[in-house]
């Protein structure tokens, strides 16, 4: 599945992703982008190959003491294997997950179970998913022309477009596009034709205009609550 993405994670993010060094939430959204984007898939593959040099026995620079591990074999082979018929995996793989008619990338399948949608403002709905303690992840649905509240961020907000498109003062974004917004951007996204996104925040949003500002202290509390959970 390839879409023509015009907005991608930075190489540093892709490398950290390949090294499995990002929080789960951030890894999930990058994985979803990578599934949609051949360019980034190739880059991640190159970073992983670089990682693999440590894996080659000849590349080991320090000779570490390796204890006797063979005792494990007995325990492992006494455990049942999964059926080679791979019925279960095939069944899961075939069971594509859809949200609002959009087929989800694999990394989002687990997160998208039992979504609870709640209304944020007119035409904007969100469904939070608990993926880790370090980020806040949610699906966001914007109805046609619904103005979302203008906001900046305390931290970084990553957004991946899964269906439809939206635009803000910096550009317009379609399926597969990956955006990063941080405290230096104030933006007010609008969708002309409706839009489903997955968003990951590593700090809470801060609304800058109008009534939604009242949510600021609450959001912050909620986020802290989320972290402490």
């Amino acid at each position, binding site marked *: 599945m390839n879409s023509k993405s015009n907005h991608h994670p930075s190489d540093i993010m892709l490398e950290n992703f390949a090294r*499995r060094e990002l929080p*789960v939430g951030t*890894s*999930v959204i990058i*994985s979803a982008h990578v599934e949609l984007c*051949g*360019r980034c*898939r*190739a*880059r*991640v*593959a*190159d970073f*992983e*190959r*670089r*990682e*693999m*040099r*440590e*894996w*080659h*026995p*000849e*590349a*080991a620079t320090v000779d*570490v003491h*390796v*204890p*006797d*591990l*063979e005792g*494990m*074999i*007995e*325990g*492992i*082979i*006494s*455990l*049942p*294997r*999964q*059926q*080679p*018929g*791979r019925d279960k*995996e095939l069944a899961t793989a075939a069971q594509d997950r859809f949200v609002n008619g959009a087929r989800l990338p*694999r*990394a989002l*399948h*687990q*997160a998208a179970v039992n979504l609870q949608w709640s209304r944020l403002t007119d035409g904007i709905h969100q469904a939070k998913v*608990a*993926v*880790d*303690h*370090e980020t806040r992840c949610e699906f966001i649905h914007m109805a046609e022309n619904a103005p979302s509240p203008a906001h900046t961020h305390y931290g970084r907000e990553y957004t991946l477009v899964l269906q439809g498109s939206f635009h803000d003062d910096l550009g317009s974004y379609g399926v597969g596009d990956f955006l990063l917004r941080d405290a230096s951007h104030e933006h007010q996204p609008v969708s002309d034709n409706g839009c489903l996104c997955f968003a990951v925040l590593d700090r809470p949003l801060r609304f800058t205009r109008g009534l939604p500002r009242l949510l600021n202290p609450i959001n912050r509390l909620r986020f802290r609550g989320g972290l402490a959970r």
Partner: protein
Amino acid sequence: MEHILRFELSGLLPGCERVAPNSARRGKAAVQHGRTWNRDMGQEFGHAEAASDEELLSEVSHSGDASAFALLFARYSRRIYRIGLKLTGNEQLSRDLVQETMLTVWQKAHLFDLDRGSADNWIFTMTRNRCFDLLRKAKRQPVCVSADDIWPPGEEAESVSETENPIERHALLSRIGGMLTRLPAEQQAVIKQVYELDFTHEEAARRLGIPLGTLKSRLRLGLDKLKYFVGPDK
């Protein structure tokens, strides 16, 4: 050119580690499904030590062959442990990593698909994924999304250069394999250090115990010769 070499080389030089048989443990037996397993069973059951990792993995997948698994264990467990130590700095976690990864190999070998890559790659991905899950567990993070969903195993994506020009690259690759072996051994060695193992020139020179200048000239000679074999750029 550089990418082409690197990937061709990784095919030529399978990174599999042979572990010297430990005579003290020879004969230690385990019972599995009414059969007895010991170190020498590989040979008894017709697994030459030379069987490829892919063949062994598919034996495990199709018949749950304990001796094939034991051979894979011998080839990979030390490497997994060493990576674990590097990633976690903890001996117990590294042992757990060997346990979890080899358990994945045993239980999920059927997910490995020959068409989609090498066994080496698949086991490496599994190692990194199990390590990610183990560290999450150690930090008491929820594990509702499995690492295998985030970094799906078995899918070997093409490299950047491959996506740029797949057909031409493929044709060239199949020719370069033979060409490399026509280079003098010392030129093959530097090309391997730089293009397969991805070391900097300085690191490669240090590892080979040769001066940097020597390394650079061998590299240039080797690459020039390969370019000559390949023919002029179109």
